[in-house]
């Protein structure tokens, strides 16, 4: 069964997109520059786009192009170049022992470089010339060559890459640019909020977004023009959601979906002060007056309809990322959320959510309000040099999630007789956790980590952490004078082989000398089991 799209399919699919696949006149386009910076530019037909020190190009060069391509710029003309792949610098023996960073002799003078640039010599040719003339270059190792080349390229290259304004990319761009304006909502935080709020096409959502419209942008993107998004803002005029502008949405994504009220108009007893718009026809004196009256009527009608819609309630979720007191917001808006609907509140500050949670627990409208902190770590992926990136964001804020429920005041909890646990059950245990990583891909890796955690030492067999599938064997040893030895393997290992591994390792044995034996036994068992399975 082969599914291939016909051209008809392709075109009808494009109708469904929330933005054009190609860059359109009027779009805000994010460009990644050679040094990694991201810059937003407006691409307006027949204009010139300046990209800082890189130079400028004709906007028409980009219009109609798909996102994601890399271009080189020369004389305001763009040339698409192949995307860069990872340079293979396989296991070189190279080190930077002989390199004094920053002390490169520069055989080409600045003047010479400028002249070359002016004469339109290609960057890579220029770098080649540089290298050839570089007196010390033969001394340089592979490793430093790569580094050197990269530095030079960054310096002289006039290339850039267009970034597709996906929610992820736009969120990352704003987070790096000005995280305060999006209230510390990092990409992972936003992703979790959207999932927790059960955002889907066709849903109805109630949103308070003081995060420059990032949350609104995310919800609109996920809804794709289908459903209702009602936001409550703190302004007299319709709210400005600047992040939404970065998404280059097609009109249908916002127009039929997004409506707004403010904190006054969203009150049930609010009485709008509206100048009359129902003027008898014979009193209308001019066309201008007529259109003004029509406009006024449209605005009033929209306001009335939106208010009715809010008050009729049954919204699927309430999402809040606001500078105002979240408890006051919940009290006002929770009546309009449907039973079993999600309540999601983000805040840069844990304290705010901790207090909110305490308050939510005093009423019986919320099931299990829970606070979590999103955590994210990015890695640099380079051959032979993979590691977590050196700079990472400290916080993406905190998320409180709860489910709206209808209470039954007559229901009473069942009380279970407290099981008396062995005294030891809740004590802090210093421990060593040994984990065998990957018994089949490479050499066995034994990590040793000091950990401090609460463990219920009910039985030495009680599983402590069930790690995800794979060929890992975990050996946990929690000691306070070596009380217990835990061994477990997880994942691809079948239950039987896991049990075998555990029993072989001799649970409940004492003494430091069993460690090594234990590890080897587990690994063997794991390896055997894996071989059997693969």
């Amino acid at each position, binding site marked *: *069964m*082969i*599914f*291939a799209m016909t051209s008809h399919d392709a075109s009808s699919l494009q109708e*469904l997109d*929330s933005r054009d*696949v190609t860059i359109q006149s009027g779009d805000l386009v994010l460009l990644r520059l050679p040094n990694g910076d991201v810059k937003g530019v407006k691409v307006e037909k027949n204009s010139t786009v300046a990209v800082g020190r890189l130079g400028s190009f*004709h906007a028409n060069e980009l219009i109609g192009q*798909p*996102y*994601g391509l890399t271009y080189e710029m020369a004389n305001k*003309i763009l*040339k698409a170049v192949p995307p*860069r*792949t990872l340079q293979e610098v396989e296991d070189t023996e190279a080190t930077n022992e002989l390199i004094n960073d920053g002390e490169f002799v520069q055989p080409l003078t600045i003047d010479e470089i400028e002249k070359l640039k002016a004469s339109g010599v290609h960057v890579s040719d220029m770098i080649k010339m540089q290298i050839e003339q570089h007196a010390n270059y033969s001394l340089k190792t592979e490793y430093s060559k790569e580094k050197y080349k990269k530095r030079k390229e960054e310096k002289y290259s006039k290339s850039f890459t267009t970034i*597709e304004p996906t*929610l*992820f990319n736009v969120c990352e761009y704003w987070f790096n640019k000005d995280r305060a304006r999006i209230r510390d909502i990092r990409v*992972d935080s936003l*992703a*979790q909020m*959207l*999932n927790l709020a*059960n955002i*889907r096409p066709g849903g109805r959502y109630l949103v308070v977004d003081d995060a420059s419209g990032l949350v609104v942008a995310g919800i609109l993107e996920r809804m794709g023009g289908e459903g209702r998004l009602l936001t409550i803002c703190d302004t007299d005029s319709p709210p400005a959601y600047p992040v939404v502008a970065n998404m280059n949405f097609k009109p249908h994504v916002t127009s039929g979906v997004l409506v707004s009220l403010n904190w006054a108009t969203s009150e049930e007893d609010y009485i709008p002060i509206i100048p009359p718009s129902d003027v008898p026809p014979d009193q209308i004196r001019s066309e201008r007056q007529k259109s003004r009256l029509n406009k006024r009527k449209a605005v009033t009608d929209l306001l009335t309809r939106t208010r009715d819609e809010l008050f009729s309630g049954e919204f699927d979720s309430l999402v809040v990322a606001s500078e105002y007191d979240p408890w006051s917001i919940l009290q006002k808006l929770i009546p309009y959320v*449907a*039973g079993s*609907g999600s309540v999601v509140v983000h805040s840069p500050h844990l*304290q705010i959510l*901790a207090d909110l949670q305490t308050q939510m627990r005093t009423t019986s409208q919320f*099931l*299990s309000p*829970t*606070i*979590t*902190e*999103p*955590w*994210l*770590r*990015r*890695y640099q*992926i380079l051959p032979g040099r*993979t590691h977590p990136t050196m700079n990472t964001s400290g916080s993406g804020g*905190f998320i409180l999630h709860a*489910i709206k*429920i*209808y209470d*039954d005041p007559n*229901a009473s909890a*069942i009380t*279970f007789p407290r099981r008396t646990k062995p005294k030891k059950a809740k004590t802090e245990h210093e421990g060593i956790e040994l984990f065998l*990583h990957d018994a089949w*891909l490479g050499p066995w890796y034994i990590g040793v980590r000091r950990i401090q955690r*609460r463990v219920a030492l009910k039985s030495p067999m009680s599983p402590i952490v069930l790690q*995800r599938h*794979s*060929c*890992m064997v975990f050996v946990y040893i929690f000691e306070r004078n070596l009380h217990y030895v835990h061994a477990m393997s997880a994942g*691809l290992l079948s239950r039987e082989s896991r049990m075998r591994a555990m029993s072989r390792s001799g649970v409940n044995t004492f003494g430091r000398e069993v460690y090594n034996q234990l590890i080897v036994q587990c690994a063997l068992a794991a390896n055997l089991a894996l071989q059997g399975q693969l």
Partner: protein
Amino acid sequence: MWSTAREIAAGDLVIIWLTRDLVQPLIITPGKDFNSKFGHYRHADLVGIPYGSKVASRTGKGFIHVLRPTPELWTMALPHRTQILYLADIAFITSHLNIKRGSRVIEAGTGSGSFSHSVARTVGSIGHLWSYEFHEVRASKAREEFARHGMNDIVTLTHRNVCKDGFTVTDAVDAVFLDLPAPWEAVEHAKVALRKDRTTRICCFSPCMEQVMRTVNALNDAGFTEITMYETLLRPIDVSHVPVLQPVGEISEKLKQAERKREDKRLKQIAAGRQSTSKRKREDEGTPVKDQTIMEEAAEEAAGGSKRIKTDDEDGAPLDAVPTPAMDLDPHEESDAALPTTVASPPAPSPSPIAPKKISVSKVMPEVRGHTSYLTFASLQPFEPPAEPAPSAAAAMLAPKPKP
């Protein structure tokens, strides 16, 4: 996918929330009963009540919450046939792969369908998910589940080994997600399935770094770019509501008070020793070393005193305000009153007389998940290397700058 009606109807799949750690799916079948240690319920009694209701057991003891299923609740409730993905990873992958309404997505393997449900919700009825599973039983269980959840028009499940036989679609999908032991074996197949008219994305989910390295090489060889890798977790925060912390000034006052009392007693005893020539009861008890007893008493009093300061102000005495025996049984307490003391002045400035304020404090839960998997992402750009010198688009662009 699931019912969007306000009220529960017969045949609906609902989520029964017993406790946070005990969440289970239930298909409402009038005539059947639902029994748990949280009471007994008739399915028929749940029909017609609004989703999100708290329902008391028929005996009146115990209750449950009956919720509308969402992919997030399903992840908490589903029957495990494999290891599954949870919220943090699912959300991040969905976001990085740019999955949204209308997206066409491939996943392999299906496993327990945790990721599948979330994707199906997000892409909606105009999107599509092709899901592959090579384990026959898992494949058919998942197929049944998708059908029961009304996902047949969104999900196509195929029983096959994708590493060996590839996928069933060509140039069709926006994103591929691989949760397999050897994703690198499926990378070339993924490339075939991805559409070529725009940027498309892939994510490989592997717990071990060695797997990541092999995957990265395969992606690079296949022409994927912007290869990057993440780890994401969710740290649960524990909030408790506790009385405001005591300032050390109060402790200092208590200590000083105890000290004064002790000194007072010492003086008292010296005085008593001098005055009395006859031996009294006290010696019958055979006090060993006088000074030591005094020290102990003082210590006891210090302890008792600290309790007292708290109990004085609140009568709904909390646990830690239970009077200690040391305080009540101290035989010297009464004699104190009889004698002139230096502690006659009112005790330390006591904290405010109203009930102590409480504060919310929070910390990360003691036991948290430390690693799930590495998420390796890459994208495939719609770049076509100019086979022949392209019809000089560049030259066309050299056109003179338009006049405003």
